[in-house]
């Protein structure tokens, strides 16, 4: 099957795909300040969902509620209900460490650890005990780097520090690092904002390929990027979810005037 055909088949299936994560009445407070207002947003399995909206609209905040990275922020409180495969991730019985292994995250700025490329990728499997022998680790590192499209570039220098790579390579290394834990969902917070156009193109291509195995949620400032990589798009404004729709429809015929204005560049 050609790539376009795969794409089409996936798109057709889209309305029938099961929901991976369900957010119901999600509100977030930073101290007294309310950053999100009763957001209801579902994340479909094996789909790329793009979160767009002007700066400060709450899209990154929402993204971080999905693997409870907000827990690390002082004074941050989340209400409402978010489920991952029917488990409430804010339930007290949920182990947040295990949750983050299932819902991985790639950050805005590439943040490889100051260790070798090999150790960067094997870090997650090591702490979660996903492998025992050296051979197992080697295999995980290789497949993860291959999935991140970085293997051919770094296979001869796995012991060199990850910080020595170029910005785009570093970001793909961070994606490989996230992939190595075999998460079910990968959250990406403006993964290309620190990259040049060529590196951006590579990461976008990679997101396309990752979709086959992972559910992806991506926050982006670039309309074009949202249109290129995602199948579903959610528009946030002032802490509210304005509209959520198929990406095609969103960029051609949005339901909400604010979405229209934002996409046309009238504000934001």
């Amino acid at each position, binding site marked *: 099957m050609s790539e376009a055909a795969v794409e089409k088949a996936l798109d057709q299936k889209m309305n029938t795909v099961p929901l991976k994560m369900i957010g119901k009445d999600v509100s977030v407070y930073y101290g007294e300040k309310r950053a999100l207002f009763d957001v209801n947003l579902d994340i479909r399995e094996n789909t790329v969902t793009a979160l767009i909206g002007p700066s400060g609209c709450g899209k990154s905040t929402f993204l971080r509620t999905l*693997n409870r*990275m907000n827990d*690390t922020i*002082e004074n941050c409180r989340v209400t409402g209900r978010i489920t991952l495969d029917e488990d409430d991730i804010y339930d007290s019985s949920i182990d947040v*460490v*295990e*949750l*983050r*292994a299932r819902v*991985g*995250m*790639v*950050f805005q*700025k590439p*943040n*490889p*650890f*100051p*260790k070798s490329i090999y150790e960067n990728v094997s*870090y*997650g499997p090591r*702490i*979660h005990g996903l492998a025992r022998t050296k051979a197992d680790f080697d295999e995980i590192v290789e497949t993860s780097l291959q999935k991140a499209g970085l293997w051919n570039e770094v296979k001869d220098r796995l012991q060199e520090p990850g910080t020595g790579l170029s910005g785009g390579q570093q970001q793909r290394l*961070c994606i490989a*690092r*996230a992939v190595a*834990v075999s998460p079910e969902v990968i959250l990406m917070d403006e993964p290309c904002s620190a990259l040049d156009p060529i590196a951006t193109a590579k990461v976008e291509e990679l997101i396309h390929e990752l979709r086959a195995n992972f559910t992806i949620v991506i926050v982006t400032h670039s309309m074009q990027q949202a249109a290129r990589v995602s199948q579903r798009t959610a528009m946030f404004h002032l802490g509210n979810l304005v509209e959520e729709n198929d990406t095609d429809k969103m960029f051609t015929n949005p339901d909400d005037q604010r979405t229209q204005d934002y996409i046309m560049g009238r504000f934001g």
Partner: protein
Amino acid sequence: MSTSLLLLIIALIGIGAYFAGRARSLTRSGNKLATLHSLPGYHGSYVAIWAVLPALLVLAGWLIASPIYIDSAVRSTLPDAVQSQGDATVQLALGQVKAVATGLNRLDATEIETIKDGSANLRETLAARGVALAGEGQPFMVEAAERFNAMRLYSRWLMSAVVLLVAIAGGLYAIRNVTARFRARNQVERVMLGSLVVASSIAILTTIGIIGSMLSEAGRFFSMVSPAEFFFGTVWDPRFAAAGSEGASGQFGLLPLLGGTLYIAFVAMAFAVPIGLFAAIYMAEYASPRLRSIAKPLLEVLAGIPTIVYGFFALVTVGPFLRDISAQLNGLITGNYQNFIQAQSVLTAGIVMGIMLIPFVSSLSDDIITQVPRALRDGSLGLGATRSETVKKVILPAALPGIVGALLLTASRAVGETMIVVLAAGVAARMQINPFEPMTTVTVKIVHQLTGDLEFTSPQTLVAFALGITLFVITLALNIYALYIVRKYREQYE
């Protein structure tokens, strides 16, 4: 005119010059501020600087040069009988002349007459006025003292006149320069730059001076005791430096002192590093901002306690406590209630010094740990690592060079610490490895060699400088290496 009065007058001239310069700039610009290159205040400052600075320089130069000149002038008039007896006698005579000169100023004319014609005793008369003479005065001294007083008086008047003249001339010169387009601002800036440069060179020159004096004294020591004996000697037994006992030589082995210094520093670090580092990790990674804002200053209060207080603490609390508990332990095990830890011991000094070092370790490490970018923490947490896994595997490795640097800085403090070891470590200079016995350190011995009546010609005293320079080299090397590491680490994240 006294120097302080002169300074006051110069200050007044300066203030006057400031307002004159200000006013002149305003009139020269026709009261249009916009046409002035610099604000009126800068013109005022410029004129004031010209009025004050050269005058102060002349004053300082005069105050330094005139006593030297007067001394040598008076010295050359001393009788040949004195001059022929060598430098020490001349110095002594000159000192007496100066004392007499001070005394003469307190006597009235008739009393001076009685002294001159020999009907009154010089020493007793002066003593009655509160001036003590070292020896019986001699007639030539009164003459020399009068000459001395006269020259001083003349010098003083001349100085006042010259300084005031310079101040006024400087002010007038500067005020002539003031025009609307005159760049007073840039001139003031240059003076600012100059004063900053002078301030920093004073700090640097002082350091060089201290090193120079230590080196020259240490050099004198090494001319009496061979460096090999000092650096490799294993016995420290300097004997006493009694006057006239120049032939008696002691043994100046550095090794027992250095061994004690490093041993106690090691015990202190072994105590301070784990506690300090764990405290730093807690403060940086776990504590809530509220707790941190309270606990961190509290921890740093420890750093503000004078080390002599830690010394008491060691002497009256920790030492006796260790001694008693060791006696109890010994009694429980062997039935013999004999303490095996001495009150003054390596352990006592090490523990108390360790307590002193905890805030240094924790504060420096805390700064370094918080410098590790948040992105690395998030990256690790985002992969599902726990906080302690993140600390252990990501943050500490990333911060390690900086922490090592911090520890080296702390170690150099431990090596140079004096008051705690003086009180807690004991004075026995010996080489041994039992931490329950007293040992002594380089700093303790410096204190010992330099207290009491000193004779700066004997090796017993001069050895302090050799010890000092050794200690200085050790701590300097530690500090430089630590700063090098810390700087290298900083560059990594900037």
